[in-house]
């Protein structure tokens, strides 16, 4: 008879009995785990595996990015070996130095960081940047993990303490701490022919830049349509880089859009959700990534879903405004 798998959850340790699920084992040990149907349907008991092998059956029906992140349903998980599990969102902290600083647009900074230790992340996730003073703000990552420098796009907010510091006081070599990564907005391979739409406003472009390049590198063959929205053309940054990327990859299309403008060559004018709907009327079978202003993200997520996109195929990341 095989050894009974051992499950660890925080300080708790539980030896599963024969045929017992991770949920039942943990509950038997008095570990409080939210649950309802106990049949792999409702999703209430979702946990994340930190270490160990999860049986594929325990991830049935989950979003691809959740599967890739090690999420599983405890009530239908009967592992063959030991498993260390956790609730979502336990992250590491790593020291880093500012290795480059520049401007991408009048109100967008590019911040390059070099980590002093491994900081594993997926292109499109976000991290929390922490200063000596303890001041902390979240930013999406625009780089790919294998690139030497970790790149953030930071919107300059009038009176913003972190963005103001980065714009006016920070110097190359200054030390910061990175916490994370977090977020489920990233490319998962396996459906290389699926059409993908990516929509972002402002610095919502940062994660999308990472996701598009990650998908291309992974050999994605289906169409990749990137819509970037700004109030005016001054807010459209990285235009040359994205146009060059589009020229180099036949399946990648870059659509810059502005809310106010006179329709200068190559820029669509209007609300970005209407521009997307006009160009992509039916989205059944598509995958979508939406990043930026919370109200816009919520609106677009609903519209993509109502246009036929499966909810599990929509990855959205709302940039919640912090205090200044």
């Amino acid at each position, binding site marked *: 008879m095989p050894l009974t798998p051992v499950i660890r959850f925080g300080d708790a340790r539980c030896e599963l009995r024969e045929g017992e699920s991770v949920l039942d084992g943990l509950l038997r040990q008095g570990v409080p785990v939210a*649950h*309802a*149907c*106990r*049949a*792999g*349907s*409702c*999703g*209430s008991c979702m946990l994340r595996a930190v270490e160990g092998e999860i049986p594929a059956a325990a991830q*049935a*029906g989950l979003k691809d990015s959740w599967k890739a992140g090690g999420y599983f349903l405890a009530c239908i998980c009967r592992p063959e070996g030991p498993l260390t599990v956790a609730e979502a969102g336990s992250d590491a902290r790593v020291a880093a130095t500012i290795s480059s600083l520049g401007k991408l647009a009048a109100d967008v900074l590019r911040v390059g960081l070099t980590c002093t230790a491994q900081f594993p992340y997926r292109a499109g996730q976000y991290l929390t940047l922490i200063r000596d003073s303890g001041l902390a703000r979240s930013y999406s990552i625009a780089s790919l993990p294998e690139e030497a420098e970790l790149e953030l796009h930071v919107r300059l907010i009038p009176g913003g303490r972190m963005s103001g510091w980065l714009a006016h006081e920070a110097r190359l070599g200054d030390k910061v701490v990175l916490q994370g990564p977090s977020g489920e907005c990233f490319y998962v391979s396996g459906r290389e022919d699926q059409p993908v739409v990516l929509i972002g406003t402002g610095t919502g472009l940062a994660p999308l830049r990472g996701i598009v390049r990650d998908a291309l590198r992974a050999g994605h063959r289906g169409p990749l349509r990137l819509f970037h929205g700004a109030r005016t053309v001054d807010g459209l940054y990285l235009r040359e880089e994205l146009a060059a990327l589009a020229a180099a990859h036949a399946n990648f299309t870059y659509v810059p859009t502005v809310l106010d403008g006179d329709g200068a060559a190559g820029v669509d004018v209007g609300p970005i959700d209407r521009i997307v709907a006009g160009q992509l009327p039916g989205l059944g079978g598509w995958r979508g990534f939406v990043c930026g202003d919370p109200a816009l993200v*919520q609106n677009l*997520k*609903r519209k993509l*879903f*109502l246009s036929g996109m*499966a*909810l*599990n195929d*929509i990855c959205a990341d709302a940039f919640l405004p912090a205090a200044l």
Partner: protein
Amino acid sequence: MPNCNLPTLYDQLGGAAAVEAAVDNFYRRVLNDDRVAGYFDGVDMDRQRVKQKAFLTMAFGGPHNYTGKDMRNGHAHLVSRGLNDSHVDAIIELLGATLRDMGVAENLIQQVAAIAESTRNDVLCR
């Protein structure tokens, strides 16, 4: 679980796979229906999808831990915003339309509707 060899309603519908197949279809109908869509404004769609799956699992006769108290707690804030019988009627109608779209036999749809119907007084906090 009834102690007999007949397949349960949940089994006949296709179990968890049927819930998964139905949930987006059902939720999309709800959001497209002006009678009820307003009650879903501003909710987290991924979390709502999880709740919809729990509801469908129950309505399909599947395993669940729903209690009348859960139903009351979950809907009390909506009742105070005017949730009434017409909205429950609409949801049961949309549930039927979803199942018809999936090719489910009419007698099974009636059974699902009856289970959903049984929650009416709890949902409306009566």
